[in-house]
């Protein structure tokens, strides 16, 4: 590439995008007229754009929608519950959490498929393999010893095709703050690695009791999971209706405060496959290793659980804003799963901006009275 080309080449890209100024465009056109190299580069950019235009745009899997909306609902519910706890309950719960705890240590090995021969490597405290994991093989061939040379009997649990979790009981590790030795063998060969176990998971559970005699409002949310009907009208809004039911109920609540303080440490052991080799290839790139070490500490306080006197049957009615038709009334004993049957909604004419309700015919929910803000206000 001659110096002129080297200087002007960045402009080819900008010119291709229509991002050059008048003088740059003129300069570019003059140069292109006499430079086959830059012409070739421009043509390759065009070819590149053509190739990108042929890449399919992918719709997200349907289960992703369900997963997102379910998490969104959980976020919303979580917020409501947190607001309902009084500072007194929170303080008591956190104090209780400090008293009792358990420990669990977990190592996660993630394996990504790759070549035919199983190879393990370690970097950044991560053991990696290039093969899908065979649970039985791992169980047979894994040996773990702590820093003092004592054998540890791990519990190996299959999480998915690509993941197993290896749990080490804390009492088995005589030196929890030191690395453990992991030996993985296959046939006559074995590979040994040193892995630092993640910090222990600390869980605290402490029951506490309190008595509330004030009237409480039971709230239950009934969510329909059917997919909304699709409309081709631009701008139409599809909704998954959610039916909120409330019912006043007077109960004597004996809340049990369960406090969970979890300090989780996860070592994710990820393997990255070696690039596959073509029959004609003579070289291969070095194996690459992906490492993820996540340390999270969370302290959460679950909402109080209340008991409902036997025989109490709160009635749940749909509020006017709901999309369920027919003003359905559902009666459900607290704590049980209720199935509410509603008629399909009348035919809807979709217009831009119209909210379209799903023709939900059944909705099931477990009713749980929440006492939230009625306690300790």
């Amino acid at each position, binding site marked *: 590439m001659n110096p002129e080309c080297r200087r002007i*080449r*960045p402009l*080819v*890209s*900008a*010119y291709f*995008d*229509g*991002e*050059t*100024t*008048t003088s740059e465009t*003129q300069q570019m056109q003059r140069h292109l007229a006499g430079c086959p190299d830059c012409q070739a580069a421009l043509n*390759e*950019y065009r070819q*590149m*754009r053509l*190739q990108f*235009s*042929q*890449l*399919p*745009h*992918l*719709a997200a*899997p349907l289960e*992703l*929608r369900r*997963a*997102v*909306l379910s*998490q*969104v609902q959980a*976020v919303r519910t979580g917020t409501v519950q947190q607001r309902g706890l009084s500072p007194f309950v929170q303080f008591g719960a956190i104090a209780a959490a400090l008293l009792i705890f358990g420990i669990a240590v977990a190592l996660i090995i993630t394996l*990504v*498929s790759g070549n035919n021969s199983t190879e393990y490597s370690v970097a950044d405290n991560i053991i990696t393999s290039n093969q899908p994991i065979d649970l039985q093989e791992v169980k047979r061939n894994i040996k773990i010893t702590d820093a003092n040379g004592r054998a540890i009997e791990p519990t190996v649990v299959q999480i998915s095709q690509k993941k197993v979790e290896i749990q080490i009981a804390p009492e088995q590790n005589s030196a929890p703050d030191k690395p453990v030795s992991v030996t993985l063998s296959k046939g006559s060969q074995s590979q040994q690695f040193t892995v630092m176990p993640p910090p222990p998971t600390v869980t605290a559970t402490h029951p506490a009791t309190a008595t509330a005699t004030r009237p409480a409002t039971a709230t239950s949310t009934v969510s329909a999971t059917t997919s*909304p009907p699709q409309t081709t009208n*631009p*701008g139409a*809004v599809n*909704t*998954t*209706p959610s039916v909120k039911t409330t019912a006043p109920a007077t109960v004597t609540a004996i809340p049990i405060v369960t406090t969970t303080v979890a300090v989780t440490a996860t070592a994710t052991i990820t393997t*990255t*496959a070696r*690039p*596959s080799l*073509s*029959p004609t*290839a003579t070289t*291969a*790139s*070095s194996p*690459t*290793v*992906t*490492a*993820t070490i*996540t340390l999270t500490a969370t302290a959460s306080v679950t909402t109080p659980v209340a008991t409902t006197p036997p025989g109490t049957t709160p009635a749940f009615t749909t509020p006017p804003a709901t999309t369920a038709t027919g003003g359905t009334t559902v009666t459900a004993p607290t704590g049980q799963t209720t199935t509410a049957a509603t008629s399909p909604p009348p035919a809807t004419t979709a217009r831009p*901006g119209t909210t379209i309700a799903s023709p939900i015919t059944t909705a099931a929910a477990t009713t749980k009275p929440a006492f939230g803000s009625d306690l300790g206000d």
Partner: protein
Amino acid sequence: MAEACATPLVINKGYYNKSLTEGINVLSDESTVIERARQGDEAAFAAIYDRYQKPIYSLVYRLMGNPDDAFDITQDVFVKAYKGLSKTSDDLNISAWLHRIAHNACMDVLRRRKIVRWLPWDPAEHVNITPASPSDEPEHSLVGKEQSEQVQAVLNQMSEKYRSCLVLREYQEMSCEEIGVVMKLSRAAVKSLLFRAREQFREIYNEMERNGGLNSPAISETTRRGRAKKGGPR
């Protein structure tokens, strides 16, 4: 003195800008939906999800190169969006905002893994992906399929910043200005980045072709690291 652009900005007819145009047509409706979602309305948020899941999932898929990551990260993106929506201003450009969250999420994951997963493209792993529409499905022709796989294979080997920039421009068909918003870069920086990204794409693509196309071994680690260190192709 600043000079005017001689060439008018290209008006793309592709997927991304098509959706932007629709967005303008239903602007008032979208504002209403966003406002409802901002107040925690799950149904309104579901409508936002339905509208943007395709571009966001596609972007994440192309940046990460595999459906598992695309699933997880897209999920995170929308949950983050739901949580953060209440803090946004009334004049929110939700498309750019979602793309920015998605881009940052991908970069975070890649950074957390310390190195990019330079996995070879495995067509068998991608058999179940759902094309958005029949017109988006070039796999009916063998040539189209091979080309798609090869483009993704090249993308998988590019440095993440270049890959991101190139995907936003050529796949999502964003303008330099829009890319600047998503990547938090000036327009000039985007132009410069695009040039280096294109050159890296050419370099890897040509190297792959010389070595026998898709079945060729990935570019050597040394070469790749050399590129990353120097910040661009040579």
